[in-house]
């Protein structure tokens, strides 16, 4: 029982990282833009948030917690949206290939973040943003430790709840509002949307940039909460970014599914640590690597299942990955 509880308590924060990544990407892909730069954007967001709070904590004479959170969030969102803007300009305005651009953005984001990360820290302690970490990781519900149930639900930093709220808002916007309807139309059939007087370019730009902003929050959450305010120049964020892209497919492009899907992926991810414990198995080290593949394998099966059943509503947006030019004949 304790293992199960610990398992869930690991899975939910983990899920939150990729939920942000996936939510942003769902919004982006609904506009028909397949942005494979998610990992790069998460790097940019995570790094900018870290750098923002680092400088604030070091340069301000008496740093204020709320201000620190604000600076980190603002820096993160600005940097991620800048990443989204680069992608938008290249693919929407210049109509370059989306896959190539996205992959390049991933490499770019990782490179920028790692270069400046090393440059800023330059030998300093990796736990360089303690105040930001304490603020982001602070439990916002005082009664969290009452029992196992409250612990599962209430014992996290505020970004965990923001992710869920965002997912609900995204779901409502996409399904219940005119903006959502228009956005989905742009992703399905831009020529039709255009003929209906919807500005395809505007929707694509906004969805991609806002989506990037949200994806970037995943990187921020990872660095300042999940990873205890440590900036580590490992490839971990990239792995999480790809998992977020996989999650988008798993959810069949529906924000509500991202909530439970992300937590489920979290459970899968930590399966290798807790399953042997719970079941009392002893596993060799290399087997754990195999178990870590589970989320990807599950995604492949979901993809197979969805395409086999051919239900139109579960397919990716019809013009996903295609550039749009009105006077194409």
């Amino acid at each position, binding site marked *: 029982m304790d293992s199960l509880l610990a398992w869930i308590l690991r899975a939910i924060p983990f899920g939150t990282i990729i939920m942000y990544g996936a939510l942003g990407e769902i919004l982006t892909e609904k506009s028909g833009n397949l942005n494979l730069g998610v990992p790069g954007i998460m790097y940019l967001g995570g790094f900018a948030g870290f750098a923002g709070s680092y400088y604030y904590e070091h340069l301000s004479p008496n740093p204020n917690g709320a201000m620190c959170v604000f600076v980190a969030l603002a820096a993160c969102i600005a940097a991620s949206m800048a990443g989204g803007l680069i992608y938008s300009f290249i693919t929407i305005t210049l109509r370059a290939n989306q896959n190539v651009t996205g992959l390049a953005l991933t490499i770019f984001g990782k490179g920028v973040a790692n270069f400046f990360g090393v440059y800023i820290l330059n030998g300093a302690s990796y736990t360089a943003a303690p105040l930001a970490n304490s603020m982001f990781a602070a439990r916002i519900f005082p009664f969290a430790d009452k029992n196992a149930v409250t612990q599962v639900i209430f014992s996290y930093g505020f970004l965990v709840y923001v992710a869920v709220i965002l997912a609900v808002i995204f779901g409502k916007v996409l399904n219940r509002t*005119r903006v959502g309807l228009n956005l989905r139309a742009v992703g*399905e059939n831009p*020529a*039709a949307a*255009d*003929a209906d007087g919807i500005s395809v370019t505007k929707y694509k730009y906004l969805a991609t940039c806002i989506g990037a902003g949200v994806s970037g929050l995943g990187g921020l959450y990872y660095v300042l909460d999940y990873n205890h305010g440590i900036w580590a120049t490992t490839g971990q964020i990239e792995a999480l970014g790809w998992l977020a892209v996989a999650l988008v497919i798993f959810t069949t492009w529906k924000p509500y599914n991202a909530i439970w899907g992300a937590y489920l992926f979290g459970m899968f991810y930590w399966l290798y640590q807790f399953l042997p414990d719970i079941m009392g198995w002893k596993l060799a080290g290399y087997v754990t690597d195999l178990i870590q593949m589970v989320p990807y394998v599950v995604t492949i099966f979901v993809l197979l299942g969805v395409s086999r059943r051919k239900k*139109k509503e579960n397919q990716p947006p019809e013009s996903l990955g295609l550039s749009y030019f009105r006077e194409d004949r």
Partner: protein
Amino acid sequence: MGNAIELRNVTKTFGTIIANDDVTLTIREGEILSLLGENGSGKTTLMNMLSGIYFPDSGSIFVKGEQVEIRSPKDAYDLKIGMVHQHFKLIDVFTATENIALGTDKNSQGRFSLRSVKAKAREICERYGFDLNLDQKVYEMSVSQKQTLEIVKVLYRGADYLILDEPTAVLTPQEVEKLFAVIRNMKADGKSVVIITHKLKEVLEISDRVAIMRKGRFIGSVLTAEATEGSLTEMMVGEKVELNIARSTPSDVIKRIEVRNLSVINHEGLRVLTDINFDINGGEILGIAGISGNGQKELLESIAGLQRTISGTSIKYYPGENGEKELQLVGMNPRDIRNAGIHLAFVPEDRLGMGLVRSMGMDENMMLKTYDEGSSIITNRKLPREMAEQIKESLGVVTPSITTPVAQLSGGNVQKVLVGREISSDPTVIMTAYAVRGLDINTSYTIYRLLNEQKERGTAVVYVGEELDVLLELCDRILVLCGGRVSGIVDAREVTKEELGLLMTKYGGKEEG
């Protein structure tokens, strides 16, 4: 009746192709106007400039006497102009109501509610007599239902001027009747309707006035009451132009292909070819005429093995020499048909869409047809290179080198490559479709000369063409398709241009009254 919309001296070009040349056209309040013309005469392009899809290169547009600029579909809607395109612009996974609601933020008040959109749409349906299930998803709809939805959508946006692009092309006769009833209801309600069409019968049945276009130019307009099928055809096809294409008298005519009971149903379940019977003879050029989209493509593809035909179809090939047995082509795969000597050179509207790979040079495009020759597992690159050089030489293909990607060649040169490749391997039957589409005069004559040479060598040549003048001077016999059926097979030396025009626009070609 006042003038609702006026186009004055409007010109639109795409690259070197002039789609509309100095067109001046008036649409009046409360009338049904037919815009009549052959394919490629610029009807749709002209109307697309009213609906904001294209912007004119020069000329001006007036709505109710005021000069306007229509830069986007949104501008068009603001001017109460709405267009139903031939290719429907609907979102498949949306319901009818959701499609109607798209992009309508201007005329809505307060909160977004699909329910109120639906209520208003239902009102429109009842008012004009549309039969539409507003909760149905578009991907579950028939073509006719989709069209109905498109019209309701346009009306929902408050359009007073409706443009329908070939609305009857995809409908059954019963559905056409229903559509016409609705159009009359709209007219009674004071709306102006423009119908783009090339079907004379429908023009005479529904419209008040007819405007005729030919080769991008506006020819004139007449009141429907004063028009006959004959007079309209004449305006549509124009005077016969002498082209002086050298045509030899066929000799040694032998039957090569015998088509019997050919019928084809396409993906959408529509019957595109019905009971086609004809022969293709060696030493002769058989022209195929028809408004495009009347089954020409499917006809050629059926023979080439690229189209599935309905059972009962028989396409027999007579190799002829040495008493070889005839071959049943139905059910054979395309490569075997090709190897038997039957070649197809199809030039689609976008030219590069079929047959050539954009990013490859001439040599590699030749190799697409020769890669399986020879016995080594390494492809023979010398043969295609020689072929490419030869075609470049003999047809005068203008290209820096045979390895330059064909996408960088001009349209005419691309077509030379395509046709040249098919001819180069000495086929017994060669079928070309729109081989001179968009070509300049000189290059066109080169192609005609090539086809004539083939004919004199005893090859059976099939030429699907758009220009009646060319068909009349190049071909020996002309098969006319209308609505997927053989409207007539005529002697190209005897038939007149008007007769051909009538056969194309009306099954059997008989003028009424």
